[in-house]
């Protein structure tokens, strides 16, 4: 027979799935804006390893010459991104969910063990509560990154009226680089996140949709449990 194991609270599922299209729009509109001054690349000396972004990428996504459109979407959906994020943080604080999410001093060592395990390098799997240490670090970092996007974004958006934020983020050019790097971070997070979700399987995925996982337990186990219950 089947047993229901509660996973994600309703509020967290809503915040999670609302964030998905909102963040997608923020990244897309951000690319439209970035295109107008696309100066970043990775490399050394005269060697470019990676250009942000190749023309083929722009063409495929119909990016060129949509700066004003990008700005319009970006400065409308920024509100939804911020509000959804703040509500999520508020919810985790009030509900106590943060306790499962915030890493502690053991988390970094354990996260490394999780990584080695997931990459099939080591067989040892550290104990976990709702989330393993690597998840705790990832899910807390992504919130800090969101916060960073708001701060650096506001610094670029109103560099004179929020001059103190501009100072805090290292000036206009640094704020723009940080804002861009955080976005690349989201994309990398997304790729790993999807890979992990696929690896974890359907049951885990539906935990984020219906809020619970289903565990199959053998009939005999149920009987034994029932017996145990009547005994106590």
């Amino acid at each position, binding site marked *: *027979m*089947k*047993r*229901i194991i509660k996973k994600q609270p309703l509020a967290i*599922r809503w915040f999670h*799935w609302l964030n998905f*299209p909102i963040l997608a729009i923020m990244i897309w509109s951000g690319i439209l*804006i*970035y295109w*107008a*001054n696309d*100066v970043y690349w990775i490399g050394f000396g005269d060697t470019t390893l990676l250009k942000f972004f190749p023309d083929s990428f722009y063409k495929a996504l119909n990016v060129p010459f949509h*700066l*004003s*459109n990008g*700005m*319009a*979407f970006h*400065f*409308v959906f920024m*509100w939804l991104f911020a509000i959804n994020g703040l509500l999520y943080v508020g919810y985790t604080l009030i509900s106590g969910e943060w306790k499962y999410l915030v890493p502690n001093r053991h988390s970094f060592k354990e996260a490394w063990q999780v990584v080695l395990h997931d990459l099939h390098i080591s067989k040892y799997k550290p104990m976990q509560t709702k989330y393993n240490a690597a998840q705790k670090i990832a899910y807390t970092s992504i919130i800090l990154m969101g916060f960073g996007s708001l701060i650096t974004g506001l610094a670029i958006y*109103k*560099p*004179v*009226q*929020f*001059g103190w934020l*501009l100072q805090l983020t290292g000036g*206009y*050019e640094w704020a*723009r680089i940080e804002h861009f790097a955080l976005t690349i971070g989201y994309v990398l997070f997304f790729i790993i996140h999807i890979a992990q979700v696929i690896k974890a399987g359907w049951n885990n995925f*539906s935990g984020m*949709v*219906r*809020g*619970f996982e*289903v565990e199959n337990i053998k009939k005999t186990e*149920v*009987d034994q449990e*029932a017996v145990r219950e009547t005994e106590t």
Partner: protein
Amino acid sequence: MKNKPILNEEEKTNRTIRRKTIVSFTVLFAGFALAFGAWRWIGNQEKENEQPKLLRSVLNINEKVNNLFFSENHLAKEYPKSEAVKVARVNGDVGMGEEFNPLLWKLTVNRHHENASDTAFQLTAKDIKALPKREVIFNFKCIEGWNQITHWGGARFSDFMEKYKLGTHSGKAPDINHREDLYKYAALLTPDSAYYVGIDMKSMMHPQTLLCYELNEQPLPADQGYPLRLIITIKYGIKSLKRIGYIYFSDTPPPDYWHKQGYDYDAAL
């Protein structure tokens, strides 16, 4: 007998699982469909200055929110002379047509709105240079995303308003204590009227807003708007109109070249 309640329990659990799975996945897919529909709806919406109406109305709200944080005391950071670039980037040439003789140039100012007659007068470069000279070395920011530390010289727009008693309904010199007498906007146009900006009065009266005639302590190069351009540090470069031909004042937002093409009206930093 012993197994019966467990079976019922099993059935109940199965039903709960089925029901919750169907409901939650339906809500998820309906949500995605709704989001996609909303996306399409926004895209197909009637446009106001090149942006879907919904986006435009939020952008207008953003401007109001920005105004809450605006202060005349918030200055763009200034830099030492040594950090200014030697050659300032030239980015646009709208309104900079070749049929222009700087020797014949005069600035036409209308105390009131564009079509008011008998209130226009003309000034020369000499008149502007007679006003106290100010310099500003700041990080010029283009709406495209680039920025450059540049060094400009000219007269404060507020000094210009003071001297020629401009920007007020009454025709008196502007008085901070009588804000209701101030026009809400100033409009600046190139001599051929091909490029034009509208700027709120608070920003025009900002101490770093200059009627500018020098770059790097030299007369403005032709492509930087010789003989006179605007430098407004608290707006994107699209508002720093080059080669000013006309100035007038208005209570309604004057037409703005880039606003019509889909950008924010205020373009405020």
